[in-house]
């Protein structure tokens, strides 16, 4: 501690330790919060096609098209000083003859802290293709859509939370065929 450099070293190391302790304190104040929020999903249109699938082992697979409405107010319990952003995603879950559980992500969104947090989306189309592994979507009674999110914190664990609203829709029995004139 007798030279400037030695004092600077000591000061800097102490500041970093104090900063680490403060970050841990920030994590501890928000680690045990319940981050579930009621979510309202409504599906307006469902269409099914049987198309060429070049990514799977068979020639044709089912492709679903869903148009949905989404509304949720996610501000109060979720955003606090330890949240940097939220990663929301809408996933469809169903069972078929060949697979007992299928989960497909249809749409996602990143909500940064400070942005508008009242979600009110109408007539949204899915971002990603709803391909089935086979032909199990036709006449499927129960396809459940759920909105979940990943909380990205400033410090600590990243909790994965399932939203408390989900909707089950049946898929049509027939494929949509393109009209030929």
């Amino acid at each position, binding site marked *: 501690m007798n030279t*400037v450099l030695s*004092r600077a070293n000591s000061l800097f190391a102490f500041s970093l330790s104090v900063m680490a302790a*403060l970050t841990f304190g920030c994590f501890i104040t928000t680690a045990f919060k319940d981050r579930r929020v009621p979510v309202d999903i409504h599906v307006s249109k469902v269409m099914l096609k049987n198309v060429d699938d070049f990514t799977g082992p068979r020639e044709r697979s089912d492709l679903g098209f869903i148009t949905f409405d989404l509304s949720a107010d996610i501000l109060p319990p979720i955003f606090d000083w330890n949240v940097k952003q939220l990663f929301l995603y809408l996933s469809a879950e169903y069972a078929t003859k060949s697979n007992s559980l299928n989960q497909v992500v249809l749409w996602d969104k990143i909500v940064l802290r400070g942005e508008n947090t009242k979600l009110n989306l109408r007539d949204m189309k899915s971002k990603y293709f709803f391909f089935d592994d086979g032909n199990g979507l036709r006449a499927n009674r129960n396809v459940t859509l759920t909105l979940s999110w990943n909380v990205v914190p400033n*410090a600590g664990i990243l909790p994965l939370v399932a939203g408390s609203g989900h909707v089950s829709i049946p898929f049509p029995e027939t494929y949509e065929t393109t009209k030929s004139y």
Partner: protein
Amino acid sequence: MLKHKHQSWLKRRRRRIIWQLMRTAAVPLRGRNRINTRNHPQTSGHWRPLFDYKGQKLAEQIFQGIILISAGIGFVYGLIIEQFGWTVYIVLAGFAVSCVLTLPPWPIYRRNPLSWQPALPESTAEPSQKPQESTKKKKHK
């Protein structure tokens, strides 16, 4: 103008140090025993390291106290306004303040320097043949 003021301040400081050392010296310091203040830690060589443990302890207490206080204030403020960025800013401000207060060699950290033993001569010549020896050697004879 400023340099003149600094020189006269240095002169006053040297006189004060000489006076203090004369009062506490073991032998009377007169004539050839006059005190050399050119290398005294409180009048020159501020940036050279000075071994003053009490001063360094004071410096360490000061910066630890400032950083802990700014950390406490920052944590509470960030918790209230729900933004961790402000906590970091307040701690950085405390870091800057304690940099200014403890990094440069202020005089308060140089008040109690260690008094070193005199250096032993390398040659074996007798002291009487060297009338220009420093006063410290004569003190310890």
